[in-house]
């Protein structure tokens, strides 16, 4: 197990390193225009461009440029020339909003995804299954921006059931909660669809396994067979999938949802940066997002090893 962990950790660091190089190359080397100009932004004066060149080291060799830029990003000194804001600070400020959105949505999508998947599987082929399948497909097919628009229009404008003025911090719990309900639903609907299908499929496979038959032959109650044997094994792919999905959204991947609902989190920041072609910001969020995805990838691998002893212990029979 130790060997497994050490290797995963080293692998994760190596991947992050590779990503940082890739980001660097994409933003600085690949485009044909003067990098200093791009960084300085749309309204740059020639003096500004010159000072950017020096600060960012564009007159030096590539590896030195890489080193300088990474230093800037990681020590929190990189500033957007567009908005004159310290990028790293802005990202940190956005984390609570993004976390609130993503964790809440994740709880909803896990709960409903598993519930619907379970119901579909135990009544496979029946009416419940078919109905839930249709719902799942609708959920998967609905674009987030469309769903968000519909919810906003009907539930905050036509009928003022929910507030619409963006994110409210946790200091006021009720406001925080009511402002997040619609965003949670928008973000979760897609995943509920996916997860219910994944669990359904996984459960149908597991229910046909020999060990489930053994469990029944031992005289175990139906409930015990379903929880200890069927669900325990069926959830493994769901959990691993969840790790990856969650890593992606919390790394600033819920861009559209945050933008539509005016939640000033990392995703919102990313949307703005893209709109304004603010390269330093885009680079920073790219690395931020990559970090979370790699981190959660590693968590998923570790969780998988915990859940399946064959992976943990190796497969040598004695």
């Amino acid at each position: 197990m130790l060997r497994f962990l050490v290797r995963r950790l080293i692998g994760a660091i190596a991947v992050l390193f590779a990503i940082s190089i890739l980001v660097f190359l994409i933003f600085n080397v690949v485009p044909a225009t003067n990098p200093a100009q791009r960084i300085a932004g749309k309204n740059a004066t020639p003096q500004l461009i010159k000072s950017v060149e020096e600060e960012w080291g564009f007159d030096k060799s590539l590896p030195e440029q890489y080193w300088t830029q990474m230093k800037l990003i990681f020590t929190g000194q990189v500033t957007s020339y567009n908005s004159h804001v310290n990028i790293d600070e802005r990202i940190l400020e956005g984390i609570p909003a993004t976390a609130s959105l993503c964790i809440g949505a994740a709880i909803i999508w896990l709960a409903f995804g598993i519930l619907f998947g379970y119901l579909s599987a135990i009544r496979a082929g029946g009416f419940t299954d078919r109905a839930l399948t249709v719902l799942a497909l609708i959920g998967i097919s609905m674009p987030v921006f469309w769903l968000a628009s519909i919810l906003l229009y009907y539930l905050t404008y036509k009928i003022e059931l929910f507030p619409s003025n963006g994110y409210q911090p946790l200091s006021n719990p009720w406001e925080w909660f009511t402002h997040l309900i619609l965003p949670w639903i928008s973000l979760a609907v897609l995943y509920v669809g996916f997860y219910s299908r994944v669990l359904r499929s996984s459960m149908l496979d597991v229910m046909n396994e020999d060990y489930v038959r053994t469990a029944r032959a031992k005289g175990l109650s139906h409930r015990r067979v379903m929880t200890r044997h069927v669900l325990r094994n069926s959830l493994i792919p769901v959990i691993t999938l969840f790790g990856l999905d969650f890593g992606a959204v919390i790394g600033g991947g819920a861009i559209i949802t945050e933008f539509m609902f005016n939640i000033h989190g990392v995703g919102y920041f990313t949307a703005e940066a893209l709109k304004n072609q603010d390269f330093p910001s885009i680079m920073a969020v790219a690395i931020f997002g990559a970090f979370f995805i790699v981190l959660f990838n590693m968590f998923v691998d570790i969780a998988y090893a915990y859940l399946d002893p064959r992976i943990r212990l190796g497969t040598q029979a004695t």
Partner: protein
Amino acid sequence: MSGPLLEVDGLRVGFATEDGRVQAVDGVDFRLEAGEVLAIVGESGSGKSVTAQTIIGLTRSPNTFVEGSVKLNGEELTTQTEAQLQDVRGSKIAMIFQDPMTSFNPVYSIGRQMVEAIRAHDRSIDKKAAHRRAAELLDAVGIPDADRRVDDYPHEFSGGMRQRAMIAMGLALEPSVLIADEPTTALDVTIQAQILDLIQDLNRSRGLATILITHDLGVVAEVADRVLVMYGGKVVERGSLDDIFYDPQHPYTWGLLGSLTRLDQPRPHRLPQISGAPPSLLNLPTGCAFRPRCPHEFGKCGEVPGLEARLADSPEHRDRCWLTPEQKRAMRQIEGRIGLEEPA
């Protein structure tokens, strides 16, 4: 103790499938007494596994139709509720299956799964006590270093050890009937011999009654007392071990016996074989199900033969074949062996 332990009468099991109704089991009767081993022999589609699983109600579903009676110590099982059957499973009738690798849940240790079996019917049993009992049981079936191995995972056991653990788990609650569905098919021959010895020992020492399901007549010869031969969902021959091996009455039994290889006899020029293939249950022939493959068939075979005792001195030896006993004895011997086809 009067009366048989297990009585099966007129058992019929049908499944509703997309392609129509399939009669997997079509009229099976037998009695099982304490201390004896009944072998049910057959190939794919014979209905042997479905019969076994139906005894403890594992085949129940909205698409399954069960008729007939299964009585354990006089008590009818087919009409019991699922909860009542759960009580029977494991504690009164235990069942073990073919592939011990896939029959254990790979994510729990063997010990944990055994503890689960031990506490299944009585949650008041202390977990630690159950764990100790699990280790004792593993030791009793011959697993070395049982105290340590009880916490190992299924993939850390070899095939033979896993099957022993499976048997230990099955007998944990001291049931009176053990149903073993092809318990040695997935095992090496040396391990098979050990497992069969183990089953026989347990039979004798505990007065266990065992139903052994297999396609391997060699295994049958080693451990069985009585034999049921199934084909196409019906019992086509039934009798004592000696009856079946030394005076087989049904052409299918001849075919099975004939295609066996004997290490203690010289090789035949050609392995006697049965032509054709086991029937699809969706498309059973009219009359005797074996007719399309039987070189001795004649007009009357268009009528399904009843399972009857046709030998005057052996009322327990029954078969489903219209040929007279004299005709059967005449047609049976080929090249000094029992077979169905002339060598090329």
